[in-house]
């Protein structure tokens, strides 16, 4: 079982009456020649690493290698604990976990690139927050990860997930598209709704530049991971409400790729433009 476009993915889901997650599982087993149990075990390990990274800085905040971030996740946690959060249960948790993962990443801790290190907070952030609020089991979270994997694979196959090629829209943008699609499946939406949500995210994050201060994966990367979960949540809500998108995910990926390639080099991970060019900040 294989697919190279969102259109083919939806056809497979329809033909076999399967969710996106299961099509992606079968594709992995078929193409890698791997046993389902081994594939499941490997994804379970990824989930365990994600969970650890999403929680560890809540108790033990660590200053980043470049010194630009550290302790943000704990602050969000404390605000939620005080009852003052204006973001609601899911979003406040998702932002907390997403920023926590980026703290771990920036202090040389263990993370899962999802799809990149600079966007590693978005998928675990949203999925773990949903699990806390809706009591999803790990089995359901694994479904979510395979669904997210399908969306990220399409981006790698047909566009790019490299900030140096397509800007932050290709990193955090794709990560948020993955998270949105996974959230839709976890909350009972259809495969078409998942991909509508993914399309919405790319549309709403279109053109986002990659401008890491000092060239480091810290700032504004961590902030943007929090923005990514917010975008993902908004897109998932729209899709679950039955709002359809006029631009299919395949086309939206092509648009994102085209926009990415039109970005000037200064705004594609070279640390020469955007936030990175702000005077007075760390020039490493």
């Amino acid at each position, binding site marked *: 079982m294989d697919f190279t476009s969102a259109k083919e993915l939806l056809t497979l889901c329809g033909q076999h009456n399967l969710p996106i997650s299961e099509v992606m599982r079968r594709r992995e087993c078929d*193409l890698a020649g791997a046993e389902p149990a081994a594939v499941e075990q490997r*994804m379970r390990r*990824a989930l365990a690493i994600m969970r650890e990274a999403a929680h560890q800085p809540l108790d033990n905040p660590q200053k980043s290698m470049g010194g630009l971030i550290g302790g943000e996740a704990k602050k969000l946690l404390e605000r939620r604990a005080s009852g003052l959060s204006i973001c609601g249960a899911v979003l406040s948790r998702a932002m907390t976990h997403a920023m926590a993962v980026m703290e771990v990443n*920036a202090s*040389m801790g*263990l993370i899962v690139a999802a799809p*990149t*290190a600079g966007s590693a907070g978005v998928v675990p952030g949203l999925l773990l927050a949903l699990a806390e609020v809706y009591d999803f089991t790990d089995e359901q979270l694994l479904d979510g990860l395979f669904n997210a994997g399908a969306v990220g694979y399409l981006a790698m*196959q047909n566009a790019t997930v490299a900030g140096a090629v397509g800007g932050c829209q290709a990193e955090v943008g794709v990560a948020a598209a993955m998270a949105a699609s996974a959230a839709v499946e976890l909350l009972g939406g259809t495969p078409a709704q998942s991909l509508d949500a993914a399309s919405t995210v790319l549309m709403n994050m279109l053109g986002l530049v990659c401008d890491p201060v000092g060239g480091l994966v810290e700032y504004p990367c961590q902030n943007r991971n929090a923005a990514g979960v917010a975008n993902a949540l908004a897109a998932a809500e729209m899709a679950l409400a039955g709002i359809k998108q006029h631009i299919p995910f395949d086309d939206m990926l092509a648009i994102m790729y085209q926009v990415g390639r039109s970005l000037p080099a200064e705004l594609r991970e070279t640390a020469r433009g955007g936030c990175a060019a702000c005077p007075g900040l760390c020039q490493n």
Partner: protein
Amino acid sequence: MSFISVFDVLGPNMIGPSSSHTAGAVNVARLARQMLEPPLARVEFTLYGSFAETYHGHGTDRALLGGIMGFATDDVRIRDSFAIADAAGLKYSFIPNFTETDVHPNTVDIAMTNAAGKTLIVRGESIGGGAVRMVRMNGVKIEFTGEYCSLIVVQRDIPGMVAYITEAVSRRSVNIAFMHLFRDGKGGTAYTIVETDEQLPPDIIQELRAHHGVDDAIIVQA
């Protein structure tokens, strides 16, 4: 890469912060360490381009040192690799080079000396997402990625060497995926790199080294 796996999307599992500056640095050094007989006594890393500019904040130095000691990209000891190398008596240094700019942005030269006093300088590039390629050996242009089992034969540039090497490989029923020949000059030192689909048995090394024209033979794999 034969196909894009779900674990290429949700992965690698890695020590942060950057797949190209941290995980890729680990992978370059892991390949380098296999190219010189252990134990390693001293290593000097020369960093170019973005590696030179951002190595401290990306932990590229710790990653390279961890990789040269054999740590994998997800090994949490990478953060402490200075202390671990010190305890093991491994000497190391890092030299940023800002003058040579005509290189891939994430390039490192690794100059190694083993306990027997033998030296080797290799150059590697981190080309994105943790993927790497080795591009020089003692100043000679070469290329391999470690994605396949790679046999590297250092030999004199004399007739019959390629036939001798391929015959030894074929007798072990191992299929050659790619094969490249590099040399520093006619009649000088040549490097044959054979990338194979199956794992090569280690006994091929002894056989190849027995030939008078072979200086060294090693097997490297990511």
